[in-house]
């Protein structure tokens, strides 16, 4: 009885409608925050005393890196929920998340290497963060490849969920083993993020960007989620109503 609200909340027609309604409420704040973060980060924030204006790459690199990890976590947790409670909608969330996460992982790699060139003198260094990020990118590719290998959506959902959960267990192990490996080789690591004393004029735009990117993910997720929910509804009558608009 206490679960009826939960099932209504998770029912495909309800999700389809809610996701559609939520999209602008996520998209517009995201756009405003990202514009504010851009002005703050590119224009108002002072240059760094060591890295000059080069550190401004951080304002897009760090939020992308945050999304790459957060989205993988969401994807795995949603997949796990879908496996345990056999919830189509949870699988739809996982399916909708994967390409977004993969694209931001790629953005993290490219911006990281663009940051690396002036700082390390080379576009690619086997820095532990970038290396973990590269492995994460391969994991996303594997996940999407596995999904694409199945004709049947239901089976693709459940199989790829198992992989995502296994990956979620493995991601921290990979990360710490890579950090450990790097500490043995004294690799260059001059990224900005570990620095404890960032003046507010630098920190505030970064936090705004984090929030903006997160809301952006929310908005794109809602759009994709509607598509994924529709793909999973073969013969439901509500679809008839939903697509008429």
């Amino acid at each position, binding site marked *: 009885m206490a679960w009826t609200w939960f099932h209504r909340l998770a029912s495909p027609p309800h999700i389809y409608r809610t996701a559609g309604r939520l999209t602008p409420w996520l998209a517009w704040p995201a756009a405003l925050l990202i514009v504010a973060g851009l002005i703050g980060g590119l224009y108002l924030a002072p240059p760094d005393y060591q890295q000059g204006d080069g550190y401004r790459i951080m304002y897009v690199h760090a939020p992308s890196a945050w999304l790459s990890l957060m989205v993988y976590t969401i994807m795995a947790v949603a997949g796990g929920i879908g*496996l345990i409670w056999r919830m189509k909608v949870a699988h739809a969330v996982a399916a909708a998340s994967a390409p977004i996460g993969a694209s931001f992982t790629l953005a993290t790699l490219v911006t990281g290497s663009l940051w690396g060139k002036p700082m390390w003198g080379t576009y690619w260094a086997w820095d532990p963060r970038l290396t973990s990020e590269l*492995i994460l990118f*391969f*994991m996303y*590719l*594997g996940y999407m*490849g*596995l999904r694409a*290998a*199945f004709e049947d959506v239901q*089976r693709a959902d*459940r*199989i790829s969920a*198992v*992989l995502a*959960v*296994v*990956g979620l*267990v*493995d991601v921290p*192990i*990979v990360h710490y*083993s*890579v950090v*450990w*490996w790097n500490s*043995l080789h004294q690799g260059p690591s001059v990224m900005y993020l570990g620095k404890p004393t960032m003046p507010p004029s630098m920190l505030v735009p970064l936090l705004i960007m984090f929030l903006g990117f997160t809301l952006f993910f929310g908005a794109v997720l809602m759009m994709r989620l509607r598509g994924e929910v529709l793909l999973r509804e073969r013969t439901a009558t509500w679809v008839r109503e939903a697509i008429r608009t």
Partner: protein
Amino acid sequence: MNEIAAQAPTEPLLMSQSRHAPSSLAVARLMLLRDLKLASRKASQLVQPLAFFAIVITLFPLAVTPELPKLRHIAPGVVWAAALLSSLLALEFLFRDDAQDGTLEQYALSGRSLTGLLVAKTAAHWLLTGLPLALMAPLAGAALGIPNAALPGVLASVTVGTVTLSLIGAVGAALTLGVRRAGALLSLLTLPLEIPVLIFGARAMKLAIAAQPYGAPLTLLAGLAVLGVTLAPLAVSAAVRINLE
């Protein structure tokens, strides 16, 4: 009332102790022995991964340099990368034959532990590919200029590491059970997950070559194996069940 009381104890007897229905453990052992016997009849399956391993090792002196001091420097990486690749070879067919002839399905329906059976098959895979690789690794190491005193370290690191490789490989094989021509996808799924094994394994070997204590990375490697033994069977049986549906 009497009838129920009389029937109740007989059911568990039928399930586990009857002569006609051997226990899950006994079936797992039979499966292990059967897989070993099958492999002994088809020696090519056993030999090919080893030949592949030897060829990959041979490529490096030819591609890099025949000078042993230089080869010794890259030997841990070469041996481990070759081991990772060789362990992929037989994976695609780990569960496939038993899935196609219906053995796995019959077993899943029988009510006994499918997990036990799959663990037995994974153990057979390790005995047939992991252990031979480990036994061959010192030979390969010696050919790459690793001093004799370090060869026990080479043997130990590959022996412990291949346990985890077989377990992760079994997860990959179970995930792609329903996929035709899964080879490339299988490597894309398993290799990123296997990176911690590569890092700790190569580190142990490197320390052994430098005549330093290599207990720490070997312990980490053993830790991964323990974690794998605990968690991988769950993922394997979940994935096999989904693919059998």
